[in-house]
Each structure stands twice: as structure tokens, then as C-alpha cells.
């Protein structure tokens, strides 16, 4: 307690300090005696707080504007006389504050901040969880009849809306541009409850059949393509050949679904609502009624979905999920990566704090003589401390200012980075709380480490003046403290370098992975054949043939195909093998295989090599023997010892009621493809022919040299010509799917690389600072050594050896940290172990080189010390 009082008493102006100390000590002592037993912790804390406030008040009374301005002026003069130190400290502060704020802001945007809609906690995503619907990726999993029935019966929601992912060709100056847009049901904007920036949004009346075609534009599209002209509202634009009136423009903050640039109404025909129960292509969002919990909505929706399914008599295991909108948007797998980034940035932040502390500490040590002199000619200790405090505050202000600039810039970079691949990342805004907290902590570090040595330094007045070169042991200790700080910096920097190195190795192995197919130049568009109209599977096959023939009619189309299960889309449709060559497989040995249904040109479209036998031909029909194509992995696992061709394979599923079991005679083996991303294992896959097992849920693939904006309308026209009643959705290029598959690793690599570079730079600055100070302090000693016959080389190696020791200790600690935290990074690695010797070796070499390079200049200076000059100066 009393030690604490003495510390606080330094705040009290010197004239009143003694009295203040006595008064409080006596009060505490008296109370400890009289109330000893009842002096609660809380009461004591209140009294301590009162003492602190009293001290502050007394100090405040003595402060005048003039005195503060004078202090600041003096501080500015002192700092400008040491430009290298000032620059290093300001940059360190700026990097620490800026970098940390950027990452924390990004984390907040993706995970913590409520979505930018009113009462965002009420927003949910409703999805079917029906295993029988193979084409259903999680987010696109509701069919129009289900949606319509759910919306009619559920009472938990204010409004429920369906979204069809879509793309539109918008004609413009330099040819049509392919725009990501969405068709939405009438309640969509009611769900989000965001007012339009200009005009109005879509209403249920717009989504009625036969209503005038209208469109709502996003803020981005409005700015980019229409020059932010308000007069566009009310005008008509051409979209996919349909003239649509622009009725409104959404504000910039409205971005749902992520990346959508326009919204058109989505009407359902009677046929949509009666025959398409199996057509799962809608994303459904809803707003919970006030006071209704998500749990109760889940239980209501489960009952509703079950009764809807029972009425429709279509499916047995219709389930439903009601997830918070953010979960539906962000998806899983990102959290661990972002947490690692947060940990990394925390390390950078610590390095920055340590570095600035070490800089300020060294600075204060170097000025002992200055302090001593000023004390001797009458400056009070309080004055010295105030001067130092003013310097720290100036440094902190400058660093903070630059930090805000870096943060503002970094946030823009982050928001622009891979915006399409990590949902909500583009919503990153500068977070004032993050900025404030990091700024405060960094500045505290600067002030603390500046003040403590100043207090000590100003104590030893006499010794400081006695000789400029005689160093007390206390001085040694503080120099050693600085060395420890620098070693800590090196440790953190090395740990970050190891992390970045591992991610780089991992990314390298990832990019070396041959996907097994060529995504370039392939445009995709998904379709869903109406259930009743296409109940006859031969019609499905006929439709496919007709469609493919139409698609091939274009001269720049080299290949066209349909597939159930586009690679790289998280599609999964797997079964345990039921029979091999007519023999039942025991329940335990049923190898799981993926099933894909494709048209003959699928392999050519994606450039998948045929390894043995043949792929499907147009002559493989329902009337001919069922055939199957295996990928190499399936052939290996099913018939490891012999050629798979000629064997028969059967899966336990029938693709339509009353149809044959899926499977057939193996006629060919094709190359493996990494269809779930380069980091995932290749799955054994059985391909069946669309002509023999016609699927009603398909994605059309076209390989062409034409631009998407040209080829997509062509594909739409072809689908429309084959059957105008077939809904189309999810227009994407294969390249987009492929880019998405490696977007996260790339982002993590870039970020961690930046952090590691920052940390090692800061560490280098730290090493340079401490070595320069060491050499400065030992000038006399080195002079004597040289006078006694030490060679230049010996002096050089002495200084370098010093730095080397620091670097080695830091490095070993860093390696220790990396080994300790390896589980955190292991999940992000591909093709490299968390303890990877080459990476560790490279990091060790890099760290040592940087350390020695940073020590080189001070070492050179030491080596060039002229003993005559030094010793004469004394």
C-alpha cells in the first residue's frame, strides 16, 4: 500500500507531496487499525481511488496552458534533433496501431458486427435438409412449392422470401457485361427492411405473374454503369433482352446476397408451385417475429415442413434448418483462419510495443548526462519527467496519426481483397474501438518505458555528471533489459516468419496440385427440369440431347455437356457400393463412391484424360447395356489387382421411382479430379451417362472462346428454345469456382507474409538501436582494447557476436513458440507438416542474416574507433 502511495505521490506537485503522502498514509493506517476487520476490499479500493483522484486534482491545479505549450515545444525540439529515433518510434507505433486495427476491424466485419440491417438478429436463413435432393447445395436448397407452402403456414416470421441466384447480360458501350443479380420474391425487401436510396423497392405486386418487368439496382452498379444519375429511375433498361423499368436504387450498405448488383421480381407460375417440388434452387431468408426465438422457429418449421411433405406425399425425410443469417452467409472453415490471423497480428502488435519501449528506453539511457546536467543547474525532477512525458505524448500522437492513416488505407485494401470469396470481408470498416484500444496500449508502452528509466536516470545526478563514460551497474542492467526486449522481438518475428513460411510452402503445394481438369474457358449455368413435365425420364434425355445440339450450333463452342455435380462446388452425392460383378458386397466393405451423371462430352469439356477404355458415347441409350466410367481412384480401390474394364458395379440407389439401380458395366477409366478443391483428397467416383440415368437437376457446361457476356445469353437462349419452362440459376465460370477454392489460403498467406515482414523489420530496427547504443556506451572500453592491441577484426566480431547471441536466443524462443502453437496453424496447412525442417532452417538463416545486417553498421563504427581520439576526449 505505502509503496503504491509513494508511486502516486509523484503526481502531486513537489511542494505538497510530503504533506499529501503523510496525510494519506495516516488515514490508511488509522482505518486499518480501527476498522481492520471490516475494512473490505471494496472500501479499500474506493479509498485508493480517492487518493489517486486527489493527487490528479492537485497536479491539475498546477498545470497552465503556457506550461503545457512550453513542454510540447521543448519536446518537439528534442525529437527533431533525433530524427532517426523519432522516425523509428513513430513508424513502429503507426504499424502496430494501424495493422492491429485493420485485422480486428476485418474480424469484426466478418464475425462480430451485426449485419448492416435493422434488427439483424431477427434475420435467418431457412433451408431444406433433404438428403434425397442431390443437387441441393446447402444454400440453394428450397423448391418453389416448399417455399410457398412454408410461407403460407409458418407463423414465426414477419416475412419469408426466396432468392434465385442469377446472372444477367446488360448491354453497354463495349458489348454486354455479365452482371450478378438475383430474382427475388415480393417480400424480399420487407425481410431486410432497408429503405431504398432512390425510388422504391420491389413489392409483392411486382412479383405477380404478368406484372410490368421492373428492376432495382445496387448502389455499385448504379455508380459504375449509370454515372450515379438519379434520372435513371423511371427509365427502361435492357436485361437479357427484356426491357425492365428501373424503379429503385438500394443504398451502398445493402449487399445481399453478397455481390448482387441488381434484383428482379421472381414470380412463380402455377406449374412452378405444383410440379417442381424436387427442384431445389432457392435460397430462403426470413425475419423472425419480434420475441420469437430461433429455437421456437426451428420447432415450428420442423412441424410445418413435415406436414407439407406429408401433404405433398413426395418425400419421406424432409427436414428443415433455420440458421442465423450470418452463419448462412459466412459459412464454416473461415473462423480458424481468421483466428490465426488475429493471433498473428497480436504478435505483431506485441513486437511493435516492445520495439517502441526498447527505442524509448535506449533514448532515455543515452540522455543520462543531459538529465544530470539539467538537474544540477536547478531543474526539478518533476520538470524532467514532464518533459519526457511531453516527448512520449508527441511521439504517441504522431504515431497514432500515422496509425490511423495506415488503418484507413489497410481497411480499404482488405475490403477490396477477395471480396467475393470471403463473405462480408468487403464490409470491413475502420473500427473505432479497435483503433482506440490498440492506440492506447501502444502509447502506454511508450510512456511507461520512457518514464521509468527517466525517473531512475534523474536520481543519480552526481554519478551522471562525474564522468560521461563511467557507467553504473544500473545502467548495465537497463542495457540488458533492452537486449532482452530485442530478443523477445526476434522471437515473435521468427515465430511469424515460420508461420508465413509454412503457409507459403502450403500454398505452393496447393498451386502445384494438378486439379485434373482445365477450368479455363468453361461457362456454367444450372437448370432444374420441372418434376411433373419431366416425370418421364426419356423426356429428360431427349431434352438434354436437344439442348446440347443447340449449344453446339455456335461456331466458337468447342464442347458442351451437362453434369449432375459440378466440380469445386461442394457437391456431394455418395453411396456405398452395393454389388461388384453381381456379387453383393458385405455391409462393412461397401466402398463409398461419389456418383456423377454426365453427358458424353463432359470429359472433353473439362479436359479430363481418358486413361483406359472409352467414355460414354451417343450410342449409350436406355435401350442398350448400362455402362459406367470410373475415375482412377475408384478403379484402384474397387479392383486393385486387375483392369476394371469389363467389371460391373451397382449402387444401392434408384434415380427415379421404379427405375433401375444406378450402375453398369465399366467401359473406361478417366483421370482423377480434385473436385472438392486442391487441398482435399480425390474421391473414388462412378460416372453414369445422362442418356441412361437422366437427371432432372443439371448444370450446363460450355467450353468456348467467347466472353461470358456473349456466351451466357446464348446458353439461356438455347435452354429457352429447348423448353421455355425450365428455370435457370447460378451462372458462373469454372474459373470462378476454381478461384474460390484457393482464395482463403491465398488471403492467409498474403496477410501472414505482411505481418512477418513487419515484425522482422521492427526487430531489425530494435537490434540496430540496441547495438548502436551498446557501441556508443562502450566507446572508451573499445578504445582501450584497440590501444592494447585488439585488431579491427576482433572488435568487429565482438559486436557482431553480441548481436548474434541476442538473435540466437530470440530465434530459439521463436521456434519454441512456433512448436507450441502448431495446432493452430496445422488446420490451414496442405502438403507440409507444422514442424517442417526446411522452413525452420530458412527462417533461422533469414533471422540471423537480418540480425547481423542490423548489427553491421554499429559494428563498423566500433571497429573504426580511434583510441587516440577517444582517450584524449576524456
Amino acid at each position, binding site marked *: 500500500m505505502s509503496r503504491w502511495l509513494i508511486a502516486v505521490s509523484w503526481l502531486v506537485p513537489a511542494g505538497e507531496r510530503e504533506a499529501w503522502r*503523510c496525510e494519506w498514509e*495516516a488515514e490508511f493506517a488509522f482505518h486499518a487499525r480501527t476498522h481492520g476487520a471490516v475494512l473490505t476490499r471494496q472500501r479499500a479500493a474506493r*479509498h485508493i481511488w*480517492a*487518493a489517486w483522484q*486527489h493527487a490528479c*486534482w*492537485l497536479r491539475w491545479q498546477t498545470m497552465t496552458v503556457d506550461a503545457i505549450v512550453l513542454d510540447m515545444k521543448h519536446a518537439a525540439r528534442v525529437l527533431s534533433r533525433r530524427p532517426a529515433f523519432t522516425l523509428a518510434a513513430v513508424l513502429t507505433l503507426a504499424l502496430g496501431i494501424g495493422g492491429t486495427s485493420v485485422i480486428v476491424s476485418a474480424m469484426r466485419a466478418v464475425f462480430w458486427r451485426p449485419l448492416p440491417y435493422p434488427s439483424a438478429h431477427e434475420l435467418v436463413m431457412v433451408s431444406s435438409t433433404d438428403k434425397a435432393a442431390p443437387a441441393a447445395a446447402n444454400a440453394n436448397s428450397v423448391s418453389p412449392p416448399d417455399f410457398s407452402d412454408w410461407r403460407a403456414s409458418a407463423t414465426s416470421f414477419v416475412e419469408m422470401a426466396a432468392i434465385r441466384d442469377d446472372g444477367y447480360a446488360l448491354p453497354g458501350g463495349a458489348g454486354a457485361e455479365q452482371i450478378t443479380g438475383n430474382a427475388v420474391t415480393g417480400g424480399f425487401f420487407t425481410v431486410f427492411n432497408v429503405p431504398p436510396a432512390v425510388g422504391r423497392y420491389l413489392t409483392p405486386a411486382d412479383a405477380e405473374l404478368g406484372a410490368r418487368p421492373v428492376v432495382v439496382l445496387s448502389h455499385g452498379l448504379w455508380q459504375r454503369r449509370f454515372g450515379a444519375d438519379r434520372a435513371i429511375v423511371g427509365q427502361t433498361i435492357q436485361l437479357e433482352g427484356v426491357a425492365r423499368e428501373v424503379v429503385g436504387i438500394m443504398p451502398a450498405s445493402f449487399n445481399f446476397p453478397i455481390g448482387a448488383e441488381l434484383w428482379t421480381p421472381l414470380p412463380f407460375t402455377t406449374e412452378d408451385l405444383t410440379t417442381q417440388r424436387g427442384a431445389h434452387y432457392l435460397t430462403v431468408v426470413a425475419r423472425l417475429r419480434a420475441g420469437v426465438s430461433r429455437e421456437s422457429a426451428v420447432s415450428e418449421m420442423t412441424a410445418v415442413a413435415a406436414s407439407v411433405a406429408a401433404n405433398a406425399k413426395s418425400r419421406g425425410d424432409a427436414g428443415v434448418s433455420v440458421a442465423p443469417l450470418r452463419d448462412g452467409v459466412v459459412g464454416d472453415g473461415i473462423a480458424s483462419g481468421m483466428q490465426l490471423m488475429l493471433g498473428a497480428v497480436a504478435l505483431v502488435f506485441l513486437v511493435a510495443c516492445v520495439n517502441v519501449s526498447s527505442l524509448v528506453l535506449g533514448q532515455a539511457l543515452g540522455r543520462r548526462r543531459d538529465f544530470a546536467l539539467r538537474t544540477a543547474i536547478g531543474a526539478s525532477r518533476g520538470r524532467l519527467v514532464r518533459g519526457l512525458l511531453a516527448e512520449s505524448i508527441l511521439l504517441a500522437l504522431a504515431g497514432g496519426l500515422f496509425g490511423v492513416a495506415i488503418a484507413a488505407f489497410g481497411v480499404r485494401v482488405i475490403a477490396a481483397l477477395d471480396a467475393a470469396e470471403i463473405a462480408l470481408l468487403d464490409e470491413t470498416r475502420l473500427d473505432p474501438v479497435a483503433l482506440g484500444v490498440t492506440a492506447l496500449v501502444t502509447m502506454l508502452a511508450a510512456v511507461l518505458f520512457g518514464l521509468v528509466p527517466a525517473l531512475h536516470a534523474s536520481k543519480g545526478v552526481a554519478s551522471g555528471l562525474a564522468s560521461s563514460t563511467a557507467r553504473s551497474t544500473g545502467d548495465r542492467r537497463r542495457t540488458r533489459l533492452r537486449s532482452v526486449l530485442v530478443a523477445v522481438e526476434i522471437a515473435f518475428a521468427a515465430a511469424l516468419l515460420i508461420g508465413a513460411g509454412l503457409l507459403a510452402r502450403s500454398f505452393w503445394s496447393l498451386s502445384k496440385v494438378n486439379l485434373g481438369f482445365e477450368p479455363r474457358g468453361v461457362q456454367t449455368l444450372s437448370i432444374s427440369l420441372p418434376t411433373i413435365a419431366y416425370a418421364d425420364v426419356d423426356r429428360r434425355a431427349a431434352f438434354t440431347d436437344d439442348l446440347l445440339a443447340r449449344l453446339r450450333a455456335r461456331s466458337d463452342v468447342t464442347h458442351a455437356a451437362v453434369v449432375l455435380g459440378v466440380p469445386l462446388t461442394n457437391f456431394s452425392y455418395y453411396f456405398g457400393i452395393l454389388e461388384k460383378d453381381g456379387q453383393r458386397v458385405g455391409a462393412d466393405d461397401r466402398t463409398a463412391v461419389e456418383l456423377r451423371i454426365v453427358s458424353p462430352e463432359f470429359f472433353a469439356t473439362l479436359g479430363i484424360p481418358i486413361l483406359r477404355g472409352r467414355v460414354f458415347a451417343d450410342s449409350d441409350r436406355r435401350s442398350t447395356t448400362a455402362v459406367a466410367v470410373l475415375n482412377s481412384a475408384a478403379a484402384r480401390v474397387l479392383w486393385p489387382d486387375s483392369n476394371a474394364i469389363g467389371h460391373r458395379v451397382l449402387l444401392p440407389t434408384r434415380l427415379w421411382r421404379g427405375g433401375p439401380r444406378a450402375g453398369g458395366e465399366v467401359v473406361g477409366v478417366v483421370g482423377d479430379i480434385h473436385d472438392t478443391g486442391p487441398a482435399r483428397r480425390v474421391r473414388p467416383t462412378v460416372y453414369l451417362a445422362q442418356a441412361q440415368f437422366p437427371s432432372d437437376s443439371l448444370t450446363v457446361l460450355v467450353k468456348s472462346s467467347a466472353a461470358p457476356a456473349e456466351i451466357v445469353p446464348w446458353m439461356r437462349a438455347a435452354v429457352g428454345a429447348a423448353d421455355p419452362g425450365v428455370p435457370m440459376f447460378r451462372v458462373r465460370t469454372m474459373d470462378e469456382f476454381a478461384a474460390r477454392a484457393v482464395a482463403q489460403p491465398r488471403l492467409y498467406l498474403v496477410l501472414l507474409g505482411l505481418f512477418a515482414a513487419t515484425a522482422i523489420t521492427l526487430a531489425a530496427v530494435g537490434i540496430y538501436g540496441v547495438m548502436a547504443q551498446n557501441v556508443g556506451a562502450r566507446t572508451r572500453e573499445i578504445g582501450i582494447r584497440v590501444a592494447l592491441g585488439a585488431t579491427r577484426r576482433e572488435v568487429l566480431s565482438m559486436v557482431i557476436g553480441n548481436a548474434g547471441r541476442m538473435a540466437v536466443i530470440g530465434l530459439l524462443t521463436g521456434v519454441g513458440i512456433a512448436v507450441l502453437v502448431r495446432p493452430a496453424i496445422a488446420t490451414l496447412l496442405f502438403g507440409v507438416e507444422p514442424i517442417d525442417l526446411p522452413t525452420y532452417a530458412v527462417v533461422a538463416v533469414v533471422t540471423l542474416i537480418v540480425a547481423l545486417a542490423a548489427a553491421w553498421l554499429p559494428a563498423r563504427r566500433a571497429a573504426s574507433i580511434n583510441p587516440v581520439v577517444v582517450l584524449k576526449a576524456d
Partner: protein
Amino acid sequence: MPKSLSVAALTVLHTVASGTGHGFDIIDETGLPGGTVYPALSRLERDGFLSSAWESVEIARADGRPPRRYYKVTRTGVTALNEALEKLHALKPIRRATQAPARGRD
């Protein structure tokens, strides 16, 4: 002439004038936070309303603790206190909340 006293300062002054002279005791008696009481004491002393002295060393030593600082009201302090109290007493209590006259929207 010193500035008029705040209610907190007046309370502290009154407590000291009533015979409670030690900081912690004043905190306990007034219920005011220590961060208010101590600055008020320092300010009142500076303005000459209070004077402070240290407890005799014998008493403190007999009790086994350092001597406490105690505050006493000065003559000026008593005058100022009484003037302020009279001013306060001149204010008549309000029985009932009177309604503010309705104003049109402008």
C-alpha cells in the same frame, strides 16, 4: 471574494464545521465520493475557509500509527458557511410540481 460554494463543498465545509475533521471520516459521514471530498478540502483550505494541522505525535504514537491531518473551520469559513446556508434557507420548498405552460411548436 471567493466564488460561490458548490453544494458538495458546502456539505464538506458544514461537516468540518460540525466537528468531523479527518478526510476519511468526512467521506463516511457525507457519503460523498473521496474523489470529491479531498479536492474540496484542498480547495477550501486554499480559499481560507479551512485550516489544517497535524495530530500531536504523542497521541498517534500511543495508537501506533502516523499522525493524521485534521481540518478546522476558520472564521471566514464560518461566515461563508452561514451566508450560504441563509441563502439556501431563503428558498421556499415546493409542494407540488407545477406544470410548465404549454408552448406552441415552432
